[in-house]
């Protein structure tokens, strides 16, 4: 049994596997299958200031090696989260990443003011939601720096900024977040994508475009994690298309301290636990005693 513990900004993770935001709600449903205390962490559904009903029409469809989705941040609002979900999650013996989203800076500020009053240890600042209207703040360095520095000044909690892949150079955006005081960056959020129904000529989603997640995006995410981790000094959390332990380890070799896994859980509700086992098995078979040894151990040509 290799040592699987990792650390981000003083928060100890018993293993690097976190279930990523949006696929897991606030943890209650999948608890039927997964003992949350076995997970490194849980990132909650992106939560806004007020309740949001999300997008009308169909919200998910399978595409080759993955899926497209367009939820539009349906959530019950931050007050509901703080009152009804956060205390429950905090009692589960895992790290809770409170994922928050806003449509402008004022909304983020109002959410963080409320979260600041709670014991939530970690904020995952989603500045990259692909499924709401308007360009997310996280698509420019200036926008990223502005929102990150404003939130940084408001909170002593660990601040992870979640980045969009829908940009020219993600490492530059990560540097902007770092300069503005982020404790870590997580990447990638889903990739803008589209499907059209030929018969009706209508885009599949009411929002016209959706977001691509799943196996297909793993190689893209891995490349972005590597590029980012080789530029920033703060920890990186790798996300995107991870379905097994070896892929999770590739993310870590590329420089990720933790790995978030998202939609693979739809196929296999036990996937997060299996990934942890598979990582451990690989480490044991390859004589690695401590997983921290492999973080960023990539040997580029």
């Amino acid at each position, binding site marked *: 049994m290799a040592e699987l513990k990792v650390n981000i900004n003083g928060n100890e993770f018993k293993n690097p596997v976190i279930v990523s935001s*949006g*696929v*897991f*709600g606030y943890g*209650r*449903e*999948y608890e*039927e*299958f997964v003992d949350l205390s076995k997970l490194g962490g849980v990132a909650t*559904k992106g939560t806004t200031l007020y309740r949001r*009903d*999300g*997008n*009308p029409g*169909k*919200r*998910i*469809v*399978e595409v080759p*090696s*993955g*899926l497209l*989705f367009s*939820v539009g941040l*349906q959530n019950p609002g931050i007050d509901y989260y703080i009152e009804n979900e956060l205390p429950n999650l905090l009692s589960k013996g895992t790290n809770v990443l409170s994922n928050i989203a806003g449509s402008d800076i004022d909304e983020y500020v109002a959410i963080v003011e409320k979260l600041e009053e709670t014991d939530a240890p970690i904020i995952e600042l989603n500045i990259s939601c692909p499924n709401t209207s308007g360009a997310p703040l996280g698509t420019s360095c200036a926008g990223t720096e502005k929102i990150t520095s404003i939130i940084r000044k408001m909170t002593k909690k660990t601040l992870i900024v979640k980045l969009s892949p829908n940009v020219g150079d993600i490492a530059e955006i990560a540097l902007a977040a770092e300069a503005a005081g982020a404790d870590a960056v997580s990447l990638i959020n889903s990739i803008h994508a589209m499907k059209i129904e030929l018969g009706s000529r209508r885009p599949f989603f009411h929002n016209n475009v959706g977001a691509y997640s*799943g*196996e297909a995006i793993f190689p893209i995410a891995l490349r972005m994690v590597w590029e980012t981790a080789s530029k920033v000094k703060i920890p990186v959390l790798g996300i995107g298309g991870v379905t097994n332990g070896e892929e999770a380890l590739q993310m870590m070799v590329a420089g990720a301290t933790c790995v978030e896994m998202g*939609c693979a*859980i*739809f*196929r*296999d*509700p*036990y996937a997060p636990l299996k990934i942890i086992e598979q990582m451990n098995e690989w480490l044991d078979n390859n004589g690695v005693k401590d997983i921290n040894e492999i973080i960023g151990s990539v040997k580029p040509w």
Partner: protein
Amino acid sequence: MRYVQGKYPLLAKNNIARGIYEMNILAPDLAALAVPGQFVHIALAGHSLRRPISICRIDEAHGVIKIVFALKGQGTRDLADVPVNSTLDIMGPMGNGFTLLEPGRKVILIGGGIGVPPMVGLSDYYREYATAISGFRDASIKILQDEFEKNGSRTILCTDDGSAGIHGFVTQPLEELLSSDGHYDCVYACGPMPMLKVISGICGKYDTLCQVSLEQHMGCGIGACLVCAVNIRRDGEEHFLHVCKDGPVFDSREVVW
């Protein structure tokens, strides 16, 4: 546990009509939990998303569930290709079943096309007190009428093109039954949305309780990912509730059509 996930043996598979298959699956723990109207979520090799399929019949004594499905795209084609005696990766039973009245109440079961299968589980329960109205595009895709008849349920068959039974839609016999003197305590319906909408309107007119089973594209199947939204009016407000967790069965008066 409300649901289970595992690999369950496929006992039998039959092509029962053009492009429609039935499968019997040995799943004792799942069968023991299931009630009519719930569904299973099936994983297939090479597919990122599971496929939701209604439970057609539950044979708790033998630990067997039956599903009936139509070929639609690659997922259902791959499902139909799964060989007998191999296993299927199934999660279930998912969702809330139909609300059952006490046995002996008179009910109407309406299935449109591939919406017919979940009605069989209700016929197993209400038996001769059920009238099953089934509608198909044409006679080549007519399914499950024997099952209703063996239960003693009355069957009324409709086809859009008149190639079998009544030439017309299921809503015509429904209106006749409800306007006749025989009192019905509940109408259960599953099928295409436009059909359900008209049924809901007719039941409203005769002040008869109506439970509809809805479909939506799904991810998790358990209420976590919020992708299977349907617009429901509850407590005077419209909400996007979720077919997998809050449904698939809804009171037709709540559905914002």
